[in-house]
Structures are given as structure tokens and as C-alpha cells.
């Protein structure tokens, strides 16, 4: 596809990977960053984007987004400043065959918006019994292997899956939740669930699974990434493991940085999540973990139709859309907790790019020009009719958020402009 020379002028350039935070210009040619500050000799801009009072940063990298339709969801992604995203394997059918993965990658490339990095199934059909063809899936484009939210009942199978992945150096991503301890649960086993009579999911469902995963990773040497942590005790276990020298990374869903069990209110099914929203003290611990760099942040984008949410709380499907809210919710968190913007942006660009092992999350000269330009001050109201995602399910409907994407570049092309 044709690219043009683009000059983004006078913005606050934040490149967390290279320690840059200053007002400067950036120049893009042939799909790559070709200069910062001064235009290279002979550079003629076909297009100039004025970024005065705006932030120019690497395109966001989302560790987990479910994409029921590429057409609508990739538009939503770039509208949210996301230029690369990983999709979990719990598609229909699951991503356990190389052909499926290849066609998925081709389809996403043909759309030419945000890049899609599939995560392959760890076991066939995600059934947790037989190993998936990881090498073939890797060749087809999978960048890691996971069970999404499906359990592996037999711990020996998990051990073997991690051993096998470690043989090839593949990353294993696990959402730590003990199936039995979480069985029938629909909300955090705490004050709100006790009061509303909702079957609870105890924190130990997460910590038991984290401990298991950490021990198996130590045993097998597999590269482990723990997805979607929800509890203070959970991040504390990861912190401890890292202090002990383990190479383990983790992320938390952006919703869990802002919401807690009390947002369930009177059975609001928009506040049903997997893992569940936990106590306010857990939320504080997740925020601290992200601030210190222990955890990165994903959108956990999960579109659910109205039919899936207009149900009694426990019967409603969990999840919320997040592609268009990731950036404003990160900006808002940074502001509320006095976290420097470069640090906050690192958690959704540099860090996840490193965890996924992909070329993204940097504005260094010569790197892909995946760029997000946003206004950090502009507030906007989240409305169903203005969300581009097919899913309109979010607890933030009707709420004001701050931080709005003005332009998004993928591979040096402007794919979104407000």
C-alpha cells in the first residue's frame, strides 16, 4: 500500500522506550520514522499534522482484545489509538489449526488497520487434554499460546504443555483462575456478593492458579505471562516471584483499574467481568502494580450484544468493550494517581510490545511508524451511538472520560483522523 511523507509538528513527543518526552516534530517516510526534530535533507511533506497541545506517542499495543468482526473492531481499535493487538484463541472455532490462523492474519492484513497478532490455543479445541500443534501455529503467525478463559483440569497436561512450549521458546499466557474455586461464581466473593446473594469467586481462585503457574514455569523454564490479574494478593505473588529472579510478566484489565465490586450497584450486568471486579483495596493494589511496572494494562475488549447483557446479573455474559476506552482510562488513571504520562503510556505500548515480542511501541528512527496523536485534555462522553465497536457494552456509558485520539498512523499511513 502507498505511503506518503508525513510531518507531525509541534507535539509533545512521548516515547517511553527511548526516554523521550519533549516538544518536537516527527517525520515519517516509507512507513517508518525517518527523523525527530529536524526534517531530513530533501524531505517534502505530503501531509502535515499539527499536534500543538497534543501528545504524540507510539501506537498502543493491546495484549487482549476479542474481535467478533474485524471490520468494525479494527476501526474501533485505531479510533482508540491502538495499532497492534493480540487476540485470544477462544474464537469460534478456537485458534488451534495453522490454516485458521493464517486466514485470520491475512484477513486482518487485507483490512490494513491495526495489526492483529493471534494467540494460539495451548491445547486442541482448548479442551485442556491434548496439546495443540504449537510449532505449526507459530509458523502461521501465533506469537504465544494460551487457554483464554478455559481451564486445564489436569495439571499434568499443563505441565507438559509448558514443557513443550519451552522447547521452542514460545511464550505461554495463562489467565489464572482455578476452575473449581471459581465454579458457579459470578462476582468477587466479598461484601457486595454477600449482600446481593451473588455466588462468589474468592481471591484464592486466582492465587492458587498463579502459584501453580509460577511453580510450573519454574519447573519447565517456559516464558510465562499471566493475563488479567484482578487481586492484590495476585499481583503480590507475581512481585515476589520476580524478586526471586523469575522472568514472569503480567497484565491487568483497564476496567479493573477504575471499577470495583461496588460498581455492581443494583445488579448492573455491565459490571459483570471475568475475572470479577474486586474490592477497592484490590483496585488500589492493581494501580500500584501498574505504576511500578510490575503489570501492564490490556483493554480486555469483549463485545457482548444486548441479548447477552439484558439478563439477570448471574446469567449475563461477562466483559466490556475497551478498545476505544483504553487510552482515556489510562490517561485518567495517570492523572488521578499522579503517574507521569510517559510511565502510564509505557504500560500500553513499550511494555506489551516487549511481552509480545513484536516490533511496536517505539518511535525510534528507523522503526515502524505506528503512531498515536491524542489530546490529553479533551473530555468526551461515552455513548453507544458514537462507539465504533459493534459492542456497546461498557459500564462507562454516559460517563465523561478525558483523552481523545486525534490521529492514528499504522505503518506510516493515516488510518484514523478525528
Amino acid at each position, binding site marked *: 500500500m502507498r505511503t506518503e511523507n508525513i510531518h507531525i509538528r509541534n507535539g509533545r513527543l512521548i516515547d517511553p522506550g527511548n526516554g523521550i518526552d519533549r516538544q518536537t516534530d516527527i517525520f515519517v517516510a516509507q512507513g517508518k520514522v525517518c527523523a525527530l526534530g529536524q526534517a531530513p535533507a530533501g524531505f517534502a511533506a505530503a501531509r502535515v499534522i499539527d499536534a500543538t497541545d497534543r501528545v504524540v506517542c507510539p501506537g498502543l499495543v493491546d495484549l487482549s482484545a476479542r474481535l467478533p468482526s474485524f471490520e468494525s473492531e479494527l476501526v474501533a481499535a485505531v479510533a482508540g489509538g491502538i495499532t497492534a493487538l493480540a487476540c485470544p484463541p477462544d474464537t469460534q472455532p478456537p485458534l488451534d489449526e495453522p490454516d485458521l490462523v493464517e486466514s485470520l492474519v491475512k484477513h486482518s492484513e487485507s483490512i490494513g488497520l491495526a495489526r492483529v497478532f493471534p494467540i494460539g490455543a495451548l491445547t486442541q479445541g482448548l479442551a485442556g487434554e491434548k496439546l495443540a500443534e504449537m510449532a505449526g501455529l507459530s509458523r502461521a503467525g501465533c506469537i504465544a499460546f494460551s487457554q483464554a478463559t478455559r481451564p486445564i483440569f489436569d495439571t499434568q497436561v499443563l505441565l507438559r504443555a509448558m514443557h513443550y512450549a519451552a522447547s521452542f521458546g514460545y511464550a505461554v499466557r495463562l489467565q489464572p483462575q482455578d476452575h473449581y474455586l471459581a465454579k458457579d461464581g459470578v462476582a468477587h*466473593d466479598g*461484601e457486595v*456478593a454477600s449482600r446481593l*446473594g451473588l455466588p462468589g469467586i474468592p481471591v484464592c481462585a486466582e492465587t492458587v492458579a498463579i502459584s501453580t503457574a509460577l511453580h510450573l514455569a519454574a519447573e519447565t523454564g517456559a516464558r510465562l505471562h499471566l493475563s488479567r490479574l484482578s487481586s492484590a494478593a495476585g499481583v503480590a505473588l507475581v512481585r515476589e516471584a520476580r524478586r526471586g529472579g523469575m522472568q514472569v510478566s503480567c497484565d491487568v484489565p483497564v476496567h479493573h483499574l477504575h471499577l470495583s465490586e461496588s460498581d455492581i*450497584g443494583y*445488579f448492573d450486568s455491565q459490571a459483570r467481568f471475568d475475572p470479577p471486579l474486586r474490592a477497592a483495596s484490590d483496585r488500589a493494589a492493581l494501580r500500584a502494580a501498574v505504576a511500578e511496572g510490575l503489570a501492564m494494562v490490556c483493554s480486555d475488549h469483549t463485545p457482548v450484544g444486548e441479548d447477552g447483557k439484558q439478563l*439477570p*446479573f*448471574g446469567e449475563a455474559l461477562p466483559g466490556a468493550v475497551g478498545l476505544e476506552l483504553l487510552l482515556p482510562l489510562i490517561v485518567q488513571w495517570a492523572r488521578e494517581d499522579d503517574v507521569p504520562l510517559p510511565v502510564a503510556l509505557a504500560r500500553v505500548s513499550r511494555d506489551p510490545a516487549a511481552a509480545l515480542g513484536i516490533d511496536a511501541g517505539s518511535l525510534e528512527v528507523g522503526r515502524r511508524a505506528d503512531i498515536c496523536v491524542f489530546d490529553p485534555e479533551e473530555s468526551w462522553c461515552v455513548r453507544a451511538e458514537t462507539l465504533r465497536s459493534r459492542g456497546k457494552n461498557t459500564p462507562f456509558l454516559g460517563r465523561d472520560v478525558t483523552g481523545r485520539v486525534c490521529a492514528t498512523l499504522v505503518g506510516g499511513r493515516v488510518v484514523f483522523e478525528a
Partner: protein
Amino acid sequence: MLNPQLNANGKLNHLLSTESLPREVMTHILDTASSFLEVSDRDVKKVPLLRGKSVFNLFFENSTRTRTTFEIAAKRLSADVINLDVGRSSTAKGETLLDTIDNLVAMHADMFVVRHASSGAPHLIAEHLRRIGREDVHVVNAGDGRHAHPTQGLLDMYTIRHFKRDFSGLKVAIVGDILHSRVARSDIFALATLETGEVRAVGPQTLLPSAIGRMGVRVFNDLREGIRDCDVVIMLRLQNERMNGALLPSAGEYFNCYGLTPEILALARPDAIVMHPGPMNRGVEIDSLVADGRQAVILSQVTFGIAVRMAVMSILAGN
């Protein structure tokens, strides 16, 4: 947050839970129930208050007993009562809960009495009625999942008030499977609103909600300690499916540890009353000698239950 039970004027529009039910509303219901009690004593047990109104009993979960009490209450108010066995009809054909509601609203329903296995289902219906601008249709929660059974909670309050007058000096023990009990939750919140002296939750840890300590109750795992000096003992029904398994080893062991026998009851105050929401499992949670004894007020609860439901329906229909 808006209280979904009250309308814009602060009047009761739906009865969904005893939690966040203002004390004056609760007292109004109990006072009105006292007047309705007399109606049930007449030869013509009927007043024309709800004449021409259609009350739909929507029981998504089967309960002939509760449905009947609501049916009697509605009929004594001269309402037309339509019983829908929704558990078997519409939902089986793929119709959603809210589709069913839309259909019945189109049939000019005035009130829904809802029993559902999922906590919060009546809230969902009330919220839906608000969204479609039909707040003139009222919802009465007749039991949702583990969440609430507010008319049972209110009839329990009526019973306690009838026998004990004042709540402030009372010690009330709620014994048994509190984790799964909507009755227990409704009682706990109502007792708190009425500023009861002390509320105790008694049971093994497997049958207590994890955050029970933050619901304003004292927790006891030992029945003898929990019942000592109590004025009111509320025994909960133990569901059959919970008797043998990972929650409890057996019905027999449960009875030995948590069954209310005359010897245990003797630890309570001599004038203590014993309540049970019914139906009782004799020999599981309660000894027949207690169930049929002079301190049991279980049949009074049933009588008061009709009057309380009449009061709730007539107050809702009038607001």
C-alpha cells in the same frame, strides 16, 4: 445511586428488597397489614381495593406454596390473578425474560409478582419498566436467587413486632444455611433498619457468606452459644440438595450440630419465640417437639404473611 424501589416522590413503586427500604415505608406496610389481618377474619374475606387490576404471578422457579399466598392476598384485594407457569412455557421456547414482560405489559398487567432463580431478576424487570416508561406497572419480588424475599422478611418483622413489640432490646438469632438464603438476607436488612438490639448469624462456615461479618451481625459457629439469651430464633430451611456433599456431611450430623431441640431452645430466653419460613424439615433443622411446641409461632407467620402481602400490593397499587 437511585433507589430502584422508590418513585420520584419517594413512594414505594416496587418491592424488591428490604435493603434500602426506608423505615417509615416498612412501618407503613406493617401498620397496614395489621388492618388487613381483620379482613381475613370476616365471612367475606375480600375488599374491593384492587378491583379490575391484573396481578400476574410470574414464577420462573416453582413454588406452589409462595405462589398460593400471593394469589390469596391478591384475591382478597379483589384483583384478577393470572398465574403463569413461565418456567415451562415461554423460556423453553427461547423467549427472554424481558420479552415475556413486554408481552404481559401489552396485556395491561398492573403488577408482577416475580419468583426467579437468579439474584437480581426483579431488579432487571423494574429497570426495564423504567426504561420503557411503564413505571405504573409494579414489581413485587417473591424471591430471587439467594438475594431477597422481602415479603417473607416483612412478615417476619410483623411476627416479631406482634409478639415482642419493640425491636431495640431484642436478640435475634438466624440459624442455618444463611449463604443460600434470601430469607436470611431480607431478615438481616429489615432487622437492621428497625434497629434491633442484636442480630446473630449461626451456622457452619460452609453455610455463611464470606463477608457476613460486615452485614452488621454477630457470627456464631456454635448453636448453643449463638442461641443463648435470644428473644427470637429464626430457623432456616436446609435444602435437600445441600444435605450431603461438600457443604455438609449429612442431614444427621447437621441435626446433631445445628438442629433446634427443646434442650437447645432452653438456652434462649424462656419467652423466646421460634420462627421458620417453611416448609420445615422436621428432624433436620428443627425437632418436632419444638416445631409443635408452645414457643413456635410458625403458623402465625403464615397468617400474617397473607396480610403483609395484601398490604404490600395495596400500597404499591395506590402509589
